[in-house]
């Protein structure tokens, strides 16, 4: 089965985008867009341009672009999961659950603002066979409390329980979001831990890059944008066993400025992050470092699950960039601005 997955990952990795592919996308006319996207394996996005029944991506429906990007990711993940079993399968399935967590957040915000279920429902990302929530039923919850109770009785009870307690104490939506995100990534790190012994150092590197980047960006954001006290910032970060350990994160959270934090990072990151002006820049640079590592992993004979995970990381990076191009075109931005966005693509999927 691993040889099948390895072959599949190798075939898929031929679809990853290079800089010149984005040039082609930037230059393509609207009529050529469907073909250009399809040639690079983005069939879900191409369908948005070729199906006259549906609103064309980039013309009037940015939300459907988001949903199509996720649908594309889910389609490819579904194929990669097929030959897997046990911890590896659980890990990749959980990896897709972050889209469901995004749905949970959308539902909670919708209920906070009293949004109608009919308008809330189309904003939720269809999860297909990965879906474990009954969207229809959840949108019909009367308020946030009822929704949280229902969620707590469902498959994401572990993620939601802590968030509900935090929300009940403060009624602050920020606490809710932060608790959901942290609980999700804690769950991911736990699942990765059980897989690391068989998935090899490449996998640990991929997870390390992911969790360290999340922790660093969250730390900077919570500490210096939201001005939260260091202890609370530390509490909101993901439990980590990678380069930025708990002790290191406590030291960093106690520092007084972003520059001081960056100056205390490991040497490799410090060099790469020198001169980075803001938090999106930090995200972008860290993302770039992670992508370099993922490319290396993809080219090695690492275990199949590790290569599959590396591919998914790179593919999502591509998709974020494609989204930047399509949004830029939709907004009629100059090509130079879109190129600048391509260098940064700071938005996280979650």
């Amino acid at each position, binding site marked *: 089965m691993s040889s099948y997955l390895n072959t599949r990952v190798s075939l898929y990795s031929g679809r990853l985008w290079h800089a010149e592919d984005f040039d082609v996308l930037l230059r393509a006319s609207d009529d050529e867009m469907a073909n250009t996207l399809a040639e690079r394996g983005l069939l879900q996005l191409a369908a948005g341009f070729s199906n006259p029944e549906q609103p064309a991506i980039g013309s009037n429906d940015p939300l459907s672009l988001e949903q199509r990007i996720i649908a594309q990711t889910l389609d490819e993940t579904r194929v990669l999961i097929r030959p897997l079993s046990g911890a590896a399968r659980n890990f990749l399935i959980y990896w897709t659950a972050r889209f469901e967590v995004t749905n949970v957040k959308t539902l909670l915000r919708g209920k906070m603002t009293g949004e109608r279920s009919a308008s809330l429902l189309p904003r939720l990302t269809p999860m297909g066979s990965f879906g474990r929530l009954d969207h229809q039923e959840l949108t019909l919850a*009367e308020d946030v409390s009822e929704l949280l109770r229902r969620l707590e009785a469902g498959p994401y009870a572990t993620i939601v329980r802590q968030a509900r307690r935090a929300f009940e104490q403060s009624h602050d939506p920020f606490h809710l979001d932060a608790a959901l995100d942290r609980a999700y990534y804690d769950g991911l790190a736990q699942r990765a831990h059980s897989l690391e012994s068989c998935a090899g150092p490449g996998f640990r590197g991929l997870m390390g890059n992911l969790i360290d980047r999340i922790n660093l960006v969250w730390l900077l954001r919570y500490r210096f944008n939201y001005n*939260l006290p260091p202890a*609370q910032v530390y509490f909101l970060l993901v439990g980590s066993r990678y380069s930025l350990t708990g002790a290191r994160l*406590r030291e960093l959270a106690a520092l007084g400025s972003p520059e001081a934090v960056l100056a205390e990072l490991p040497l490799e990151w410090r060099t790469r992050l020198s001169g980075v002006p803001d938090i999106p820049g930090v995200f972008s640079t860290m993302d770039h470092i992670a992508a370099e590592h993922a490319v290396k992993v993809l080219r090695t004979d690492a275990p199949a699950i590790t290569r599959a995970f590396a591919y998914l990381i790179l593919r999502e990076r591509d998709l974020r960039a494609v989204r930047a191009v399509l949004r830029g075109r939709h907004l009629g931005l100059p090509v130079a601005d879109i190129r600048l966005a391509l260098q940064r693509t700071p938005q996280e999927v979650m």
Partner: protein
Amino acid sequence: MLRAEPLVKIQLLMLASEAPDAALELARFGVFNPGTFNDQSGSLAALPDLLPDSPAALYREAWLEAESRLSKLLEQCGDSRAIEFPSDAAAPSLIDLQELNGWLKEVWTACLACHESDERLQDEKKHLDALEETLSKLERLNVDLAQLLHSNSLLSVNIGSLPANGLKRVSEALSMTSTLVSQFDHIGDQIFAVIAGPRTRQDEVRGLLAQAGWRELAVPEELRTHPQEARNWLESERKQLEEQSGVECKVIGVLRDQFGPRLQEARLRVALARPLAEAALVGVRGKGGLAALAGWVPRRQVHALRTLLDNRFRGRYLLDVREPSPHEAADVPSLVRYPAWLQPFVPLVKSYGVPRYGEFDPALPFALTYLLLFGAMFGDIGHGGVILLLSLLFARKLGRMALVGAAAGVVSMLFGVLYGSIFGYEDILEPVWLSPLHNPVYVLSVAVGFGVGFIVFTLLVNARNKWVAGHRAEAIFDSTGIAGLVFYLGAAAGLASVAGASIVAGIPQNTAWMVAIVGIIVIAGFKWYEATGGLGERILVTAIETLETGINLFSNTLSFMRVAAFSLNHVALALAIFTLAAGLSVAGHWFTIALGNVVIIVLEGGIVAIQALRLMYYEGFSRFFSGDGVEFVPLRLETQAGKH
């Protein structure tokens, strides 16, 4: 019974104000399956373009909300009586439905407040229990609580609880504020702890604790000075909670009395609104004062439908009826009517899939073959009798499946008579046919022969299905069509002739092989024609798929050897038990025999039931039954409130 009832597509054009009633009438009619407007043919071909709006979308939205609120309210009230529909009841209009929804929201909000308050009280009670346990531990600690919790000291001390899985993180985070956490109790998923740190950093700690789900224990003043008074204080708190709980119960009771009768009426109106709301899911089109519904009805019911509509709408409608077009064949639902005795087997077929419209329905051959295979593999008068008895005893619990069990038991008994086997004993009755243990080769030959017959049947059915679906080339030339059948029969006869089987004595061996070669050449030619790509790829695809044809057909045939293997296994298992029992005393002997028979019935019976199902699914259904059909789901009036 062997294929779906012929359906026609209808498009019903009417006044938009009468759409709820039209949907209601169609639900009462009982055989209308809502469909889409995707096909543009017939006299109302331009309808989708003329009626671009979705007038029932708001109706559905209001219904969904009302239905959800009603379900929750009924859950609280515990009312699950069936609804009685007056014959002249009309469906509510959109405005009525929205008004009803608004009222249900008010009632549910009031009820929710009571419900949440009740939950809070329950939570408080649990908390008091925990507090009682905790305080008894504090007493034993001999700590001066007054001193500890003094609000003017430099030290800020909090006593409370937090989720156990967050303790490590909280401790680490609090260490950054020079605050210590000391756990002194663990109850369920909560830990109880004392948190102590400098009062100057209390604000930092407060935000963190809120995030961590910390719950402060409100230690009363008197407890701080006189811990022995804790019991009295706790008792008074508990009494107070019970009084509050009583008040909440009364509020819910009042709500129930106040709204009960109208709630019954709401149930009726929500149920009457369901048909249009359900139809709106797949498509109700409209514009201005017009609305249209589309769907499927049995061809033989069209006249009855017209009569119904005439009586109800007196000509204020337009009905377009047409046959399904070939390109929408996959969307046409399958309506198959089964006799009562066959219905218990239908779920077993549908767990594999629903037959496409026009496809051969496998329920009848499934039922017959499944029972035959089960009986052949588990032939024993005694064991079959036990299965029959248990099925009858637990008929109420098993529901329709009891009939499957009873039938399997009877067939098992019949084969028991043929094999001369009763509770594994082979020397009590003379076999009417043969004893598998004494004729293993013959039994294996019969099983393979049955497999050949079964596969021939599946190939014929597949060829027929393909022909009906318009895939005539596949029906004739493909490996699962007539060409496959020719190859299979030729090769099977050739192999049987080589093995010296008497059944093919009259057929020259060379003729059989020639037939097989002709069959495989036709298949290869068809695969070549179907394959796309370069020359190399076409050669590869043709070679592999043709080879696969032969391998599949014969490996599937050999699968049927398991029928014989299990019939032998049944006897062998009984022999093993008899051997074990023979060495024991009289009591041990009969105990072993009884226990062994229980094991045979439970373990082997279960395995045989699964194996028979597996043979049907993989050697049978997969050959001719795509299982991707759409089930006919008519609009109906629901007499029970439930989830949509």
